[in-house]
């Protein structure tokens, strides 16, 4: 079995299994906790509370204006990095081909030059975010091994992706195998660390939006 066959075969199957089982367990462990009944008369009915939850999911993408002067660097870097990742994953031709093979869905890809540029910007943002995390007193205090491991496991797919598209180092098959394995490592770690925020962000914002809307509080 070649490295590429391993990456596409047993490694892929194992990582998908761990991803699904891990995420399911993490969500079940939260959902099964005891809920306290709420008897207080809400300020708003259920439709408004659901609307509040949905609105909060969207509104927290852009911080309130008053906060911008103090968090602009953090917001711009992380937003650019996240948008960059989305463009690479959903706009790159090889990724669209993979999605087509798995789901049957397809759409036009972005030009290779655009993806290369976006990849470079994404990588630069990630490096800047790491430097910031290592130097900012607040981030240094909050950071754990999970923060650095999660960063590395997102950084490696982007880096190997760039190397792969340029075929600058090593053979294509080896680079492709390393790229796939790096993504699989990310999938394996996702349920256990902060990468889980990819899903929890919607649940957290939505729940806060609903709870606060119930009180008529600011979301």
């Amino acid at each position: 079995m070649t490295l590429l066959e391993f990456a596409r075969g047993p490694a892929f199957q194992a990582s998908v299994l761990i991803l699904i089982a891990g995420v399911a367990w993490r969500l079940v462990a939260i959902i099964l906790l005891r809920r306290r009944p709420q008897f207080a008369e809400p300020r708003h009915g259920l439709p408004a509370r659901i609307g509040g939850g949905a609105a909060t999911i969207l509104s927290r993408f852009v911080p309130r204006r008053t906060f911008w002067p103090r968090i602009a660097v953090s917001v711009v870097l992380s937003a650019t990095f996240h948008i960059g990742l989305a463009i690479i994953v959903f706009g790159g031709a090889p990724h669209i081909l993979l999605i087509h093979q798995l789901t049957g869905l397809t759409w036009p890809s972005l030009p290779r030059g655009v993806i290369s540029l976006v990849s470079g910007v994404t990588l630069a943002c990630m490096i800047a975010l790491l430097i910031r995390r290592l130097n900012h007193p607040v981030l240094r205090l909050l950071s754990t091994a999970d923060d650095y491991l999660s960063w590395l496991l997102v950084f490696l797919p982007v880096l190997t992706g760039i190397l792969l598209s340029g075929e600058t180092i090593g053979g294509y098959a080896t680079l492709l195998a390393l790229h796939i394995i790096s993504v699989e490592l990310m999938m394996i770690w996702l349920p256990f660390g902060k990468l889980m925020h990819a899903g929890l962000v919607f649940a957290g914002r939505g729940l806060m939006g609903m709870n606060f809307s119930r009180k008529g509080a600011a979301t």
Partner: protein
Amino acid sequence: MNIAPTPPAGGAIHPSEEQVALAMRGFLADIGPASALALDSCIHCGRCAEACQFYVQTGDPRYTPIHKIAPFKQAYEREMGPFAFVYKLLGLTPKVSAGELMQWQELLYDSCNMCGRCSLICPMGIDIADLVEQARHGMYVAGMTPPDFLGVLAEKEKSTGSPFGMTTQQLQDALHDIGAKYDVVMHVDEAQAEIVPTISSIDLKTYPSSMAAIAKILNHMGASWSFRTDGFDADNVALTAGDRAGQRKITLGVVRAAVACGAKTLVMPECGHSFTEMRWEAANAYGKNLPFRIVQITELLAEGLANGQIRVNKAPQNATYHDACQLSRRGGASAAPRVILQSLGVDLHEMEDAGDANWCCGGGGGVALIKRAQPLRDKAFAIKKRQVEATGADKVFTSCSGCRQTLDHGGKATGWNKEVASLLELVADNLRD
């Protein structure tokens, strides 16, 4: 989960291992899906620090809001989280030490107003203020509430029903004395009353004119109303101290007194935290829907002005308004004070961030009751002072006696020339017959 009997809030200097275990269990007892989601979601982005007055004013990273619950987050991960069994098996999460927990007393009490500004900035939707309240529950059961004055007042409140230990007779006398002094008819302990105003001990001790003002307005409305001395405490110091049992006892006392006289409306005075407690937790403590509604005094005033039950003369003046965090950002009552000010013809000069994103006065969350926290409190007050001065207004109105007292004290300490006044009293002083 069983919680050991509550020891007195002693603020022990050297907590024992047993106290640490009690603190963690006290915290975990409150964890439900929302808290678990919040504890699981943090991405360590640090933005909450930039919304916190204590970090912004000092630059000390320890005041980062999410860091204030760090030992409790660790307890959750180790004891209760989805992968707790793995942590236990591998010993990946070290136990919180007694010394560490002692350091967190300052972070959880002295440097948190529970104002929820951090909850507003969090990109993950974590209500950090709520987690701090839960962490304080843990600290309280471990006897680690700051004793001076927060812990002492909470203990007195739990044992006597009043943070200042007033007896029923003393309270009745105080209310009648206020009536006589301000020449207003007081209704006390009437058998039946449609409207029951609760009583803040800050008002009784420091701002008795507020007590007279609410009586004057309710008389003006022609309402059937009465103070109740068998369940009156609107301070609920227990809430900010972290005393869950005391909090429930006080809350239920107020509910039962209102039920006993057939109240249709329970009015919370000019106080932020007590409104949050009664409005959202009283029914839960009661275990069913309440037979009356709960409103904050500004909501009652705005409603009365709108339906004509309250008639006022114009009182034109140049002023700004300080939002109490629990009433505006956390309580959804930002509009009512502005309706009142407009009805009175006040030329309102809003502060930057007025309403939902306002800065706390620095005294919220019981910080005003912690003597050693004054230097830190003054730093938070400096933001408010700067903002008020930027409006050019001569006067600051507010609807929270706790805020009023903090602003008064801060003003005196810094030789500030702004008058801080009650919105309730403004209405009472300008009633039109």
